[in-house]
């Protein structure tokens, strides 16, 4: 579903990513794990079309969307859902309007049919007329994931969405994410630096020195780490 091949990206003369390869299969959840500053967010921005690779290609569902120094398909036409670290809920729109914003092409009845099950499933039904400022931290997280899912995207990208939450809430939301992704058989790329969240993925891709150093299940990485860095990470 998402394929990055030989991608190079950087700011100025330096390269954050070099010869970067990542493949996320349809219906699979991949966690991109790496320390802060390793380029995880850059990978998401490249896939979303907010950044341009210096070289290499990016494909979504087989379609070439970015190549060297060129955005071929703009973000709004890539069919992706995203949850940002700061959630980026539009503060001037209600929960309902946040969810329906990306459904402007649908009639109101269809919009309702699309968002009603999500509101129900995520426990947001009573809050659909509220503004983001009137919600708790956990409720905002649920609105952000609901907004991404409402689009019925080809894949959903999450950029450390639980980074600033306390441990119990984090556990609760991780469980919710796991269930949601399984129910919807969603293609997911989840970026994090936290090992707690890594278990969310079918696969974990470890980012080291601007490349995916190793990709596999949690058990595979623990059993046969390909570098000292990965061994220490999972020890």
């Amino acid at each position: 579903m998402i394929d990055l091949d030989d991608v190079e990206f950087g700011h100025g003369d330096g390269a954050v990513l070099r010869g970067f390869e990542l493949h996320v299969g349809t219906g699979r959840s991949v966690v991109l794990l790496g320390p802060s500053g390793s380029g995880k967010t850059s990978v998401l921005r490249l896939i979303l079309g907010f950044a341009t690779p210096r070289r290499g290609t990016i494909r979504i569902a087989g379609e070439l969307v970015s190549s060297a120094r060129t955005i071929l398909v703009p973000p709004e036409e890539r069919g992706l859902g995203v949850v940002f670290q700061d959630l980026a809920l539009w503060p001037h729109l209600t929960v309902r309007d946040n969810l329906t914003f990306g459904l402007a092409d649908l009639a109101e009845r269809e919009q309702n049919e699309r968002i009603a099950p999500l509101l129900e499933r995520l426990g947001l039904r009573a809050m659909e007329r509220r503004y983001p400022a009137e919600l708790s931290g956990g409720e905002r997280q649920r609105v952000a994931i609901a907004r991404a899912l409402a689009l019925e995207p080809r894949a959903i990208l999450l950029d450390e969405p639980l980074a600033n939450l306390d441990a119990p809430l984090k556990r609760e939301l991780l469980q919710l994410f796991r269930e949601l992704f399984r129910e919807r058989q969603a293609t997911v790329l989840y970026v994090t630096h936290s090992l707690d969240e890594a278990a969310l993925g079918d696969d974990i891709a470890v980012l080291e020195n601007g490349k995916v150093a190793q990709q596999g299940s949690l058990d595979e990485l623990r059993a046969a780490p390909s570098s000292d860095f990965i061994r220490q990470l999972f020890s």
Partner: protein
Amino acid sequence: MGGTLRRHQGAIALWIAGAFVAVAALAPLLALVSTTEGLAIWASARSWELLARSLGIAVAVTIVALAIGVPIGVLLGRTDVVGRRAAWLLHAFGMFLPPLLLALGWFHLVGSMLFNAVGLVATLGLAFAPVATSLTALGVMGVDAALEEAARVTARPWRIATRILLPAAWPAVALASIVVSVLAFSELGAPMFLRVDVFPAAVFARLGGVDYAPGEAFALILPVLLLALAVTALERRLIGRRSYAVLGLRGGSRPPLQLGRWRWPLTLACWGIAMLSIAPVAAIALRAGGLSDALRWAETAPYNSIVTAGVAATLIVAVGLVVGHAVARRTRGAAWVDALAVLVFVTPASVLGVGLIAVWNRGATELVYRTLAIVVVGFFARYAIVGVRVVAAVVAQIPIHFEEAAAASGAGYLRRLGRIVLPLGARGVAFAWLLALVFGLRDLETAVLFYPPGGEPLTVRIFTLEANGPERVVASLCLLQALITAGALALGSLLVFRRARA
């Protein structure tokens, strides 16, 4: 809308906005570059002397304005001076009025001792000090709260102000010095009233006065155009994006710095400056004794002022929304449009005026040149930067993730601009409109060169009557000008600063 067109909405909008700025602003300047007629005027030492004097006055005015405005700005922006908001409001009001009006007010207060270069520097220094005050205050208010709080643990207020706040807010102070020097150099009404020969007056005299010689007027402004280019380059190098990054009020709310035993003396100092700023307006009001004379003599001038300033402000904000957004988001090409708008603003109004005459005073464009439209074009060209920079400051404060989330949700450029940027920045955009409106209302030096027959704005009416009209009538017209400005500011403030939801 076709897919290709939809994909390029942003680029097309920027091209259209850039074309507006180019036609209104670049064309007049290019028209001047080809001028060779009348260059002999530069063989005269008198021309160089005039240029040097105007530059000297602009530098002196800038020094006075900064000397008053920077400390007062820090005090009003970040300390517990008593009634600081009210003092700021009173102090700032004068900067929204034409300096000619303030000069007339000071004349009523201190008499003919004002009629020399020192009097001019003092008048303009006080008139433009609120620019330095306001930009400094906004600058120190916008400094990251964490920087200030880290210093508060170890330092007293004066040390925090001088070592943390001011250095962090220096782009705002640098911007203030450029704005003040540009306004001071362009000023026409106050120097002519105070009988001080300055460069813009020489240009004006050659276009509509006793020394009528349009060729010489064209030639006179050529070196000033080079100066404007140099100031633009300086602005790009020293300030550029930093000005609106600092002025964006990132600081958040935090308690003011406690002045302790200095609180009351410094409160008195701030209120003293505020009173000094408003004194000429009070003197005008007393001299006028009401508005009855103004209503008899103003004719269509108030209407001309309000309509031209209102239409220009609307255009400025429409173009500013596109260009300012593009500047804040570093869209390719936006920096060029921004630089062009800066160039026209720092170019003395007399230069722009002469250029506009060269471009528009021809048969094919009579519909513009012979109507109020030419005043709108002039205001738009000169003050387009207000819209661009204010919107850029506003957009810079809106997290880019809001727009990115909208893009990922399928929203194209226009939808993102209309549904995300505009609602989130509505108050800032309204503020840009208000500021552009007031700049248009106070303008004399741009419009005086090309206002159409029967289309003179109120400032021009005051300027022309000041020479020969009854003193009481002139004072009454000035009072009307002050009331229109105060009304616009009050109405605008109600709309802009009313409590935001959530």
